[in-house]
């Protein structure tokens, strides 16, 4: 019965897809929207520089696809799903926007992708961390490109436990994403033979971490993991350094830490911290070359999100060109069939749930002696292969994954 129903719906869906897929670019124009936090807490990891990255990609592509002009509109989502939802609705329903990129706060992303699904347009999420975006909140209309909480909470704990950090204490932001990461970390630590000896859920935001750091120190755990983000993470790291956590023999692991955060902390304070990243500007000649251009345009080194926005925009435009269409399903299908090989990812594959799967990297923040400049921040310690880094499809709750 259900099998029959599934078959039927997929048949209907594919029929719709075929009829919906015009082999032409609508309005003779490819219009992209860039939606991100431009002025709030997440500004520096995507923000205005992410728009620059998108514009760089368009320029590098030549400014037009098969004679169709490429246009960009952009908006500050103010981290509000209301604002995001009305903006995205207007973009796709009135302003003929074909694809939306950026998207950081999880509430914004989920709201936006729901509207994209209703209107059958494409979204490429580069900024958000929540792994639920391609799990319970997956849609056939978006791709999650750069990283997610699952990937971040796998790489670092695995490596640290294997190197002997057996007992863990977790400082968790008392929010859905913090809880999700705490659960992921606990699972990984235990699977590798370690043990979580305690955890604290702290309010978001917390201006002073000394009390929590003290409790983490008193626990005597080998590792203190920070399952939080942004100012909470940097504040916690600052305080840990002040209270001599690493001198006391404990290791600090930050689960969500961006280049912009580490740059703000400086190697003095952040040295030795292990973290997982989807990309680093100083990995090879290709990444360096692109980052130099980015730096020229913005004055800062790109985060993995900036690089992801550039790469995904490029991939999108290539797909539009190859299929001669800006229909979301046609383009998404093409992107799924063609692995990504560029300065951002090698052999990156977009799965049916929309998750772009690629190698992640375990990085360690350099010591001040090792660091040759303000942006020379990471040593890449090891590569986490794509198939280990992301949630396997067999565990997926996504409605698009056929079992």
């Amino acid at each position, binding site marked *: 019965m259900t099998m029959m129903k599934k078959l039927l719906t997929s048949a209907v869906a594919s029929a719709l897809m075929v009829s919906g897929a015009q082999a032409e670019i609508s309005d003779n124009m490819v219009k992209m929207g860039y939606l991100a936090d*431009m*002025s709030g807490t997440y500004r520096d990891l995507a923000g*205005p520089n992410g728009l620059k990255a998108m514009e760089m990609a368009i320029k590098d592509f030549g400014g037009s696809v098969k004679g169709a002009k490429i246009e960009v*509109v*952009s*908006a*500050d*989502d*103010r*981290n*509000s*799903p*209301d*604002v995001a*939802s*009305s*903006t995205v*609705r*207007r973009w796709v*329903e*009135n302003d003929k926007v074909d694809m939306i990129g950026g998207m950081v*706060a*999880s*509430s914004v992303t*989920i*709201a936006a992708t*729901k509207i994209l699904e209703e209107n059958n347009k494409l979204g490429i999420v580069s900024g958000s961390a*929540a792994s*639920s975006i391609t799990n319970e*909140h997956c849609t056939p209309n978006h791709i999650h490109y750069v990283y997610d909480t699952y990937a971040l909470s796998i790489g670092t704990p695995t490596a640290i436990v294997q190197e002997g950090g057996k007992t863990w204490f977790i400082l968790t932001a*008392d*929010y*859905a*994403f913090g*809880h999700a990461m705490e659960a992921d970390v606990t699972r990984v630590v235990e699977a590798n033979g370690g043990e979580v000896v305690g955890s604290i859920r702290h*309010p*978001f935001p917390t201006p002073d971490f000394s009390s929590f750091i003290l409790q983490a120190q008193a626990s005597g755990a080998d590792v203190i993991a920070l399952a939080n983000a942004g100012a909470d993470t940097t504040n916690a790291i600052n305080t840990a350094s002040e209270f001599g956590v690493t001198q006391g023999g404990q290791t600090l692991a930050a689960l969500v830490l961006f280049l912009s955060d580490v740059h703000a902390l400086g190697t003095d304070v952040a040295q030795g911290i292990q973290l997982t990243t989807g990309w680093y500007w100083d990995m090879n000649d290709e990444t360096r070359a692109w980052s130099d251009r980015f730096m020229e345009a913005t004055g800062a080194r790109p985060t993995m999100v900036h690089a992801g926005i550039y790469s995904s925009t490029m991939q999108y435009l290539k797909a539009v060109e190859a299929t001669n269409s800006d229909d979301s399903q046609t383009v998404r299908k093409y992107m799924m069939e063609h692995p990504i090989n560029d300065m951002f990812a090698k052999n990156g594959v977009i799965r049916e749930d929309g998750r772009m799967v690629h190698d992640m990297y375990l990085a360690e923040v350099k010591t001040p002696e090792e660091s040759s400049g303000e942006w020379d921040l990471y040593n890449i310690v090891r590569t986490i292969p794509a198939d280990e880094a992301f949630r396997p499809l067999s565990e997926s709750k996504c409605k698009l994954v056929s079992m």
Partner: protein
Amino acid sequence: MNETVKQTDIQKAILEQQQSEHRKKMILNGVLLVLLVLAPLVMYPVFLMKILCFALFAVAFNLLLGYTGLLSFGHAAFLATGGYTTGYLLSNVPWLTTELGILAGTLMATALGFGFALLSIRRQGIYFAMVTLALAQLVFFFFVQSSFTGGEDGMQGIPRGELFGLIDLNDNLNLYYFILAVFLGCYLLVQRTVGSPFGQVLNAIKQNEPRAISLGYNVNRYKILAFVISAALAGLAGSMKAVVFQLASLNDAHWHTSGEVILMTLVGGAGTLLGPVVGATFVVNVEYQLAQGPLRDWVDPILGGIFVLTVIAFRSGIVGEIQKFMRKNLS
């Protein structure tokens, strides 16, 4: 003899002027109504509905600030409670029709408003503002802790459903006229309330509370009632907003939202009927237009500037200043 003639003339003239003013008002209201009915033809309906929801929110808030003289710094709590309640029920109770979901959200906010009022109403001025702020922070904490709100992901994908089980509200126009009807009903309710003997007492409290007490009014009971009505309408605004956007989020419960409704009311003109509506329209528009334009990154400082400018130069707000101007030119 002559004098009496003159007097009746004057009375007549005054009456005529009143009538003509009344007529002008009616015409103005009629024009506004026609504009609201036709608006979705030229403007984006979801955006219009957002304005209507915030306008109702500001009208509710103004009943306290403008007509009773109470500054609540916790109205976000009611907006969010309305939204979350409606959202939760519509998502989880399949047989519930949309209007019942909205009604439930409104009732929940009303009950919360009663609780707030009991705890805060005896406090004056800044203490009143701070108690409402504190209570709203506790409500925020509750929403953060509760799993049904979806935390920072928000409560998403709330079904719009059908009105009375008949009219499909997924159609933006249907939903718009429904929201418009509710909004107009509430607006008229507030208009009647303000003009009623009850409203006169509220005004007396605003002007001079000790005198109102000495006149024998049970001032606290009046203030509580005003607060509860205001909370109910704010909750209704939140419930409708949840249906319009199909989501409810922590942003609604954040104290910045309480600040925003103050801005809307003040910019439009506190203590005028139309003021909060104009203010909400203005602020929502400014935020929206700015967030898309070249000044995208500067929304906060510009809003701050509007705040400062309003307080310094246009304390009566847009509508208040226009009224002042008209009065000056008429006399």
